[in-house]
């Protein structure tokens, strides 16, 4: 990570906070799938528009088809969360989240499942980080940006806007590997540039 944004100690403290948030979200996901979730060390990076190329390439490599949800969080801690799903086991999700079959298994029902789970993961994650930072945040309703499309098509949805920003953004990448499923779930949190100073201050307090 670039030295400009945070120093080593600040990065360390932030890393632990994300770790805790990831653990909570992971537990929620584990319940949803009634299985084990493999947690890896989350990636926290300062990225410029060019660095996104690397991230895009990785996404193209990992997922053939994806669904992408987007959810905004605002306040003292603000930014966007993209929830990236590979082909999901809709049947498993429906059972656990308790959505009945009466409504059918069409696209709207599947979108609803993804939104439900995505919202639970995203809000758990962001709320936990903001609580630990003692910064206030709220979440807006999530939206489906892409539903089961080839990864190259979703590319713009994920990164289109970020490309236009100058300077560095803070990108937090949390990948959940579900045991027995090849394709992971992923949360990509982009923190808004203008709340980075407040974030830095909050971290400095905890070193």
């Amino acid at each position, binding site marked *: 990570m670039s030295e400009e944004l945070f120093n080593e100690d600040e990065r360390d403290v932030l890393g632990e906070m994300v770790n805790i948030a990831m653990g909570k979200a992971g537990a*929620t996901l584990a319940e949803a799938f009634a299985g084990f979730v493999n947690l890896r060390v989350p990636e926290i990076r300062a990225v410029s528009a060019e660095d996104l190329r690397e991230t895009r390439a990785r996404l193209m490599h990992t997922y053939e088809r994806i669904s992408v949800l987007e959810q905004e969080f605002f306040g003292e801690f603000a930014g966007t969360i993209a929830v990236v799903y590979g082909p999901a086991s809709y049947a498993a999700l429906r059972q656990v*989240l308790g*959505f*009945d079959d009466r409504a059918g298994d069409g696209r*709207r029902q599947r*979108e609803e499942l993804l939104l*439900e789970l995505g*919202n*639970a993961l995203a809000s758990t994650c962001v709320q936990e980080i903001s609580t630990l930072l003692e910064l206030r945040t709220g979440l807006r*309703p999530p939206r489906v940006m892409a539903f089961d499309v080839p990864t190259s098509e979703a590319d713009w949805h994920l990164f289109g806007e970020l490309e236009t920003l100058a300077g560095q953004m803070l990108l937090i990448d949390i990948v959940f590997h579900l045991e027995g499923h090849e394709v992971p779930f992923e949360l990509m949190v982009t923190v808004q540039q203008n709340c980075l100073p407040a974030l830095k201050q909050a971290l400095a307090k905890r070193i």
Partner: protein
Amino acid sequence: MGALVMKSLQNASLDATDIVDNLLTVGIVVVDRRFTVIMWNRFMELNSNLRAEDILGKNLFDVFPELNRNWLEKKIRSCLVLRSASFSSWQQRPYLFRFKASNMLSLETDHMYQDAAIFPVRDAAGLVEGACIAIHDVTELAEAKRLLDLSLDQALDLEESNRRDALTGLFNRKFFDEQISQEVVTARRHNRPLALAMIDIDHFKTINDTYGHVAGDRVLRALATLLNNMLRGSDYLCRYGGEEFGLILPQISPEHAGILLERLRKAVENADTLLDDGVTVVKLTISVGVMPLREGVAPGTMVRMADELLYASKQAGRNCVSLYKPEVAPVPTESR
């Protein structure tokens, strides 16, 4: 946080619940852990025709049996357990409560579209003891989107009709001319093969004269269907002229193009076209010229050469396929 707000309101002698109650732009329903209704604001009263005094203290699902109990119960429980908000969008679920839409607007819909947020409510001790369902009327938004989608569909239809031949449903000549240029560029950029076939119905004039123009149209449509069924999704079959067709074949080698067109020719030869009288059967044959993409050949030249090969097929007795052979007819050099 809540205590601070309460104190502030108390100091101003204001009733906090009055705010929520009179909020007419948002429906507020608060239930406890057993889904007993503990708050029902004016929005809900007016839209449901159910007064607060008639529902407070009752079970939500007893009063509204048409609610999707399985779904809503689970959603509320989840909110209580996770202690965080969840959402529902009209785009996935048109409404929670089936209320009538406002009758002021000229709407296509008879029910209200709703976005909802469900969030936990804490007691004085700070424990989550209830859930609040906030209902937003988004009917206007939904209607606007519906109209937008309709306009987009219509625009796409219009675009489609500009590039289609009305009779056969195939792509038209205008499309063909544009597409062949595009395909040549693409093929050259990615170093992929491409072939073009010009197809002409043999003795079509005779068919028209013998059976009439209606029959002629029938024959054209039947041929279009027959050929299309044998092509790949990436191929473009276009009506080029009265009885002439252009076939653009991306990603195909010259040999395979020849094989494919021979297969098509044979299928046409073997096919019977039944006319509208239900009795008369017409037999057809086609003549074909096949021109593969070659270095230094412009799209226009490619079409011309395919046409010349078609002519050669006619000369050779019709009902045959002429495939370009470099040693027989060298390509005239010209700049691209």
